[in-house]
């Protein structure tokens, strides 16, 4: 009797478990790891063509730039991301905004040091059935003379065999400038620049391919339209008569207060960069990464950029990656060196970033990336394992044909919170 009763209870419990339940969404059970990248960059440069002083003078600048990139998967379909950082820079040329006489013994002013803070929030959602994904971003940045907000969105589609992907991204930036003119121009009775806003719209198309088991490639085409204030209010320009007073009499070699002008550039610019990437797995110890970009814009700047990188795997967890980058560009049609502009020009700049030059950047990166991380530890409640996954160190030296030189030191710590 007791055995029969026990069997009945057992069968009843078993039949309850066989009743149809709400289907479990397996995509929402397994949580992927949270990744956090801590980056630290130090940049220093020196040059002799400061645009603040009309294309002459020191371009010495130091920038300390910590930043963070966080990616948090909400489930296997959705994720949010955050990237932000600070650029803390000191600039000898910015200091000369308040120096009208280009004196070598000028005492440093408040404009010599400043910082920029920036943040971008992103959201991404995938549809694994259709092999598509959608993304959106919101961003902002603040520095002493520019406040910027941005919004963006993207769509990507992968082929059935996942060997091709096409993506399209659009973004809009609105930059509001504080019109800080060179000190000698601030008492003008008329408006020097008629707008303080800049609109930038960008459409980016990327097509990537898996060519074979060892080779991948992609093409990236951007269409960029900028309207509004495209010059920099505190950049000076000197015309060919800079050393004559208002009566036409020659002055000494010091640039005259009377003859400095504020940089003037057109209010519209269209840019077309086209980039090609190519990666090849040569051998277990060697890869090849190549990049080429063609650029053209409506200010007549045409550029070619080529970069090659050769990651070399020394051990299972240590690799080095030497790289070299060459860039060549033609001058914008509104550029001329110090005191070479004619007084009847409508647009003029002596910013050597818009001049014709070629540049070289060479450097070396080192990556430490063991399979199971450098070290790991559990949180206090022992529910999560935190892993320092990898460390990357990078140095590069940049040199421009007009004399500007720069060094960049970078370190990145990649950290995972396993779930």
């Amino acid at each position: 009797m007791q055995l029969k009763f026990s069997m009945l209870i057992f069968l009843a419990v078993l039949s309850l478990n066989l009743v149809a339940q709400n289907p479990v969404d397996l995509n929402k059970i397994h949580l992927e790891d949270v990744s956090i990248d801590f980056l630290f960059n130090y940049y220093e440069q020196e040059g002799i063509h400061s645009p603040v002083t009309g294309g002459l003078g020191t371009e010495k600048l130091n920038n300390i730039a910590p930043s963070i990139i966080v990616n948090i998967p909400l489930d296997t379909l959705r994720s949010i991301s955050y990237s932000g950082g600070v650029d803390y820079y000191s600039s000898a040329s910015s200091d000369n905004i308040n120096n009208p006489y280009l004196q070598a013994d000028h005492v440093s002013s408040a404009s010599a040091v400043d910082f920029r803070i920036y943040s971008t929030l992103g959201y991404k959602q995938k549809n694994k059935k259709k092999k598509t994904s959608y993304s959106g971003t919101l961003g902002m940045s603040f520095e002493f003379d520019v406040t910027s907000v941005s919004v963006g969105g993207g769509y990507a589609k992968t082929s059935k065999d996942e060997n091709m992907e096409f993506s399209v991204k659009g973004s809009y930036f609105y930059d509001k400038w504080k019109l800080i003119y060179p000190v000698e121009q601030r008492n003008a009775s008329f408006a020097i620049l008629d707008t303080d806003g800049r609109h930038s719209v960008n459409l980016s198309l990327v097509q990537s391919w898996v060519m074979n088991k060892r080779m991948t490639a992609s093409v990236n085409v951007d269409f960029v339209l900028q309207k509004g204030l495209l010059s920099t209010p505190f950049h000076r320009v000197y015309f060919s008569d800079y050393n004559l007073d208002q009566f036409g009499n020659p002055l000494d070699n010091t640039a005259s207060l009377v003859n400095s002008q504020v940089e003037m550039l057109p209010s519209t610019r269209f840019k077309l960069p086209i980039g090609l990437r190519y990666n090849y797995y040569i051998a277990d110890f060697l890869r090849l990464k190549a990049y080429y970009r063609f650029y053209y814009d409506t200010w007549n700047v045409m550029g070619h950029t080529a970069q090659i990188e050769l990651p070399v795997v020394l051990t299972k967890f240590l690799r080095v990656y030497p790289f070299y980058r060459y860039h060549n560009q033609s001058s914008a049609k509104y550029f001329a060196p110090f005191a070479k502009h004619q007084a009847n020009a409508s647009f003029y700049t002596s910013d050597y970033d818009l001049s014709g030059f070629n540049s070289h950047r060479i450097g070396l990166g080192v990556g430490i990336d063991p399979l199971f991380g450098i070290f790991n530890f559990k949180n206090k409640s022992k529910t999560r394992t935190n892993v320092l996954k990898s460390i990357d160190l990078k140095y590069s030296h940049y040199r421009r044909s007009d004399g500007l030189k720069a060094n960049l030191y970078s370190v990145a710590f990649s950290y995972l919170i396993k779930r």
Partner: protein
Amino acid sequence: MKRVISMVLFGIFCMGLSSCTSVKAYQKMYLNDPDMQLSASPLEGFENGFQSYREGVSGANGGKTGGGCGCN
């Protein structure tokens, strides 16, 4: 220098044109290597940024194209 770069790029793309086969997921052990990713690494972000400030040319690399900064 331009001629050398053009020849190297032509050679690289000739290698690429030699085959474009369908690769199954289990055959992607080389392609899954971190150095084979086509997107820019986090460290490249700052490099692209300072280059967009110091050059009149920007874009087509996942970085700045203009706007959002006091840059060209």
